[in-house]
């Protein structure tokens, strides 16, 4: 167990460092941050209806929450599918405790990447946009919210990643996720949705992560524009915990099934298929 954690953290650390020295990876950090900050900057004169609070400032924390959900759900699923196809997973399977080390490593690298992206959006955001502030209780909330966000989303991402064979089908995952973002009150307030859509939005973690992040970075007076006019910390914790339990109970079985199917010829077959698709 200790070996798994040690090798996994080493693996995650190395891969995280690689993302900081590879041009394409740096781009995926900086590009969304630049777009986001730019958008928020040009929105700085608009205000939350009925208040004098900047609309940009009120949107930004929700986007941080979306970033957490994307890291846990989409990035984990993507990495699992891609690295299964390219044989990374089979290499892990061929080493003692390799699968454990691989999975811990993925959790570390996705956690780290998400944290870096968040920092790249947060730090300029704090300077460019008025109204964001974090109190002591805000920091304390961040301390349970961020780890819980990862535990609630990464296992679900792993389940999604283990069920898709072909990276070119990943769009099927992205589409519903974008749909969920639209109804989760990230860019457009959930209070403006019809009741049944509000209910759907509140089943999934994206809404709660957005709400949680808003509670951290926005003044308490802005809670009035939320559903039930409150930050609903207890409900946030409850829904995310349910997703965490669900994910953690499903993921091991799915991952084992996925790992069992890995062999040299399985990877070779996928390589052939990928080559055939690229060649066309």
């Amino acid at each position, binding site marked *: 167990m200790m070996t798994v954690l040690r090798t996994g953290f080493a693996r995650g650390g190395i891969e995280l460092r690689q993302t900081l020295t590879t041009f394409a990876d740096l781009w995926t950090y900086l590009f969304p941050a630049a777009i986001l900050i730019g958008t928020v900057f040009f929105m700085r004169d608009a205000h939350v209806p009925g208040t004098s609070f900047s609309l940009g400032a009120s949107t930004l924390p929700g986007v941080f929450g979306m970033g957490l959900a994307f890291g846990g759900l989409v990035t984990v699923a993507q990495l699992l599918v891609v*690295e299964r196809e390219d044989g990374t997973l089979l290499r892990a399977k061929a*080493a*003692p*405790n390799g699968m454990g*080390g691989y999975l811990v490593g993925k959790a570390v690298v996705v956690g780290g990447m998400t944290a870096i992206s968040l920092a790249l959006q947060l730090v300029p955001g704090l300077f460019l946009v008025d109204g964001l502030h974090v109190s002591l209780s805000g920091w304390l909330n961040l301390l349970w919210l961020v780890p819980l966000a990862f535990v609630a989303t990464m296992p679900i991402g792993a389940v999604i990643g283990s069920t898709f064979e072909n990276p070119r089908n990943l769009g099927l995952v992205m589409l519903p996720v974008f749909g969920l973002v639209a109804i989760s009150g990230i860019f457009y307030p959930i209070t403006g949705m019809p009741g049944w859509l509000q209910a759907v939005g509140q089943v999934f973690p994206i809404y709660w992560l957005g709400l949680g992040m808003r509670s951290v970075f926005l003044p308490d007076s802005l809670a009035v524009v939320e559903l039930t006019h409150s930050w609903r910390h207890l409900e946030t914790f409850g829904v995310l915990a349910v997703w965490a339990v669900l994910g953690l109970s499903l993921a091991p079985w799915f991952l084992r099934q996925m790992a069992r199917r890995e062999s040299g010829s399985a990877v070779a077959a996928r390589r052939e298929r990928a080559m055939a698709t690229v060649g066309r």
Partner: protein
Amino acid sequence: MTLTGELDTGTEVPAGERVIDVRDLRMRYGTTDVLAGVSFTARRGEVLALLGPNGAGKTTTIEILEGFRMRSAGEVRVLGADPASAGEHWRARVGVVLQSWRDHGKWRVRELLKHLGTYYAAYSTPEISRPWPVDDLLDAVGLTAHAGQRVMRLSGGQRRRLDVAIGIVGRPELLFLDEPTTGFDPAARREFHDLVHRLTDVDDTTILLTTHDLDEAEKLADRIVILAGGRIIADGSADELSRQVAGQTEIRWTRDGQRFIHSAADATAFVRQLFLQYGEDIGDLEVRRDNLEDTYMKLVFDAEGGAR
């Protein structure tokens, strides 16, 4: 000629020395029998080559032994355990050389070998110290000059050498090589063969390899097992196999400036007769017994002809 019947009594390895022990292994997909009762053994330090036409079941066999694939029936013991249920300690004693494609592209060669080595450190024993020290390993596979390079920048041949290095980083007692030299140039192939000899001579590693290169099998393997149609059709050293097939020997010579070629079952008797008849007139004499390729072609042809 039925070779299969004699095999059970043929090369008997004492049970205690068997690194691989396969009895009546069967694999069935739907209604197709990919393996229809395969039995063979390998002894410690032996290099065993698994040959056969495409679709004969070589890869299926090797993947079952690697523990990467479940079997339909039969008994399999590898290093004393059933690969289908063996644990991490067993995994640490087994090396698998995989065909890489684009995994770990961002990793540097030394970084990757060092990291993968750490998985084996917990399984070091007084007899076998694990993992293989990175610098020695880089030297052994000829990648010292590329140690700092990213894996995605390696040439095809260098990547294959990295594959071998990853396969042996844990100093395995048993190594699986599935078509190891595909894509090697002749020099790289020679170096690879030297490395295999080193592994078996110095470290007493048992090796199971599949290949389509019969020349390679003849050079490397102590014993050759030929699979065709899901069955073993021959099992023995290259020499034994060619004797079993009772092949012809080709004799070439010149006399009075003319070239002659003749095939004979008993070359010695033929050559004796030749000299008795023409004596000093005979020049440029060459006697060439069937090589493994000839033997293989005959065996596979017979097996496939018999099946039809």
